[in-house]
């Protein structure tokens, strides 16, 4: 499924899915709306409640909405992919989702609009739009080419040269770049300020504003990690002591050093899941791009943690596995 292609065809594929196709669909939708829909200066249903239509607005808001979301969203996504160095599964997943949502809204809104004012239904048009969007999204996921990993080592871990009965233990750590730490700290301070202001103004009824602080604190626990590999297997522990990931030695079938692109392959930093690389995808503790330890479990799941000297860590786990 992970087609290997030259960067040019990868970029062209993304441009088709995120710019050309939405432009084509939205242009067709607007033509259909102008030809078959109610006059643009009439009043139509623009909002539905549980019991049916409960909001009315000018007809021209439909083509504007379709153009801004149906075309604006994918073009925005396309523009943001231009800065991504390697187009992997995570980016393709976003592209497929965005195309699906664009098709859903373009189709659903257009159909609902051309039925008006005789009928004002949104449920069926959106349901059919969802089916169409899902089909096109799946098509994009399977057809879009990906860029191959640059300098993917895939080299087996080096031998440690342990004597009979000797055991090796390796420890390492990884920390997010200063930029990321500054951003998280700034958001935490901002969140605290907002929560304090809200609590002071509204009283304890505004306690949910504290949830923002809890969320940012949880995020902060994923900035620094300590990694230990040895006879017990692999243990990856946040510097805060929690969360902890443990993979027992007996569950490991392969350990190797790889290079990862945080954005291209995992869509960002933190605790990440990325599709591809086998049926179950890869779970990653991703703090930066670059050197990482990749461990494949007996059940096929793959665990990745970005850490320096991953080669030695892989060698220790492999030595443990070989006996």
């Amino acid at each position, binding site marked *: 499924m992970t087609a290997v292609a030259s960067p040019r065809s990868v970029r062209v594929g993304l441009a088709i899915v995120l710019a050309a196709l939405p432009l084509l669909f939205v242009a067709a939708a607007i033509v259909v709306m102008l030809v078959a829909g109610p006059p643009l200066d009439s009043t139509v249903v623009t909002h539905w409640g549980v019991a049916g239509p409960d909001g009315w607005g000018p007809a021209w808001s439909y083509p504007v909405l379709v153009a801004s979301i149906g075309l604006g969203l994918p073009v925005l996504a396309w523009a943001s992919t231009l800065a991504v160095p390697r187009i992997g599964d995570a980016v393709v997943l976003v592209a497929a989702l965005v195309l699906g949502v664009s098709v859903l809204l373009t189709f659903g809104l257009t159909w609902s609009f051309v039925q008006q004012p005789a009928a004002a239904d949104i449920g069926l048009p959106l349901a059919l739009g969802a089916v169409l969007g899902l089909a096109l999204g799946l098509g994009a996921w399977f057809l879009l080419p990906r860029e191959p990993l640059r300098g993917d080592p895939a080299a087996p871990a080096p031998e*440690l040269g342990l004597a*009979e009965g000797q055991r090796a*233990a390796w*420890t390492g750590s990884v920390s997010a770049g200063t930029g990321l730490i500054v951003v998280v700290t700034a958001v935490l301070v901002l969140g605290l300020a907002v929560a304090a202001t809200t609590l002071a103004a509204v009283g304890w009824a505004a306690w949910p504003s504290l949830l923002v602080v809890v969320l940012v604190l949880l995020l902060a626990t994923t900035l620094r990690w300590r990694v230990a*590999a040895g*006879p*017990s297997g692999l243990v990856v522990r946040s510097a805060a002591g929690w969360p902890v990931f443990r993979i027992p030695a007996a569950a490991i079938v392969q350990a190797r050093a790889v290079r990862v692109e945080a954005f291209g392959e995992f869509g960002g930093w933190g605790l990440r899941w990325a599709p591809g690389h086998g049926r179950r995808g890869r779970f990653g503790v991703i703090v930066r791009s670059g050197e990482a330890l990749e461990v494949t479990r007996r059940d096929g799941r793959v665990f990745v943690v970005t850490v320096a000297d991953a080669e030695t860590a892989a060698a220790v786990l492999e030595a443990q596995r070989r006996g």
Partner: protein
Amino acid sequence: MLITIDPNGGAPAYDRIAEAVAAQIADGTISRGERLPAARDLADALGLNVHTVLHAYQRLRDEGLVELRRGRGAIVVGTGGGEPLRRAVAAAVAEARAAGVALPALIALVRKEHQS
């Protein structure tokens, strides 16, 4: 940091950890000023209780090889003698073998020499 531990010869785990670190300081794999892994991490890797590793670190402190500082972990203060010392030890071991001196007796000799 990579730490290699010799097979179980009946010695307690903390002794084997302390000996492994001492040997790596002596042969220069771990140098003065380096920080040993946090006890929690080494315990994770070895599948041992954290107190076992702390016990090993305390032994290394008692031997003057590391300094334990609250919040900063174990810092190596001892140093290996490098290649000349290794050769001298090899010569002493060869001499002991030739004279039929057993290892515990040799170690006792070294300790006595080191203390005088």
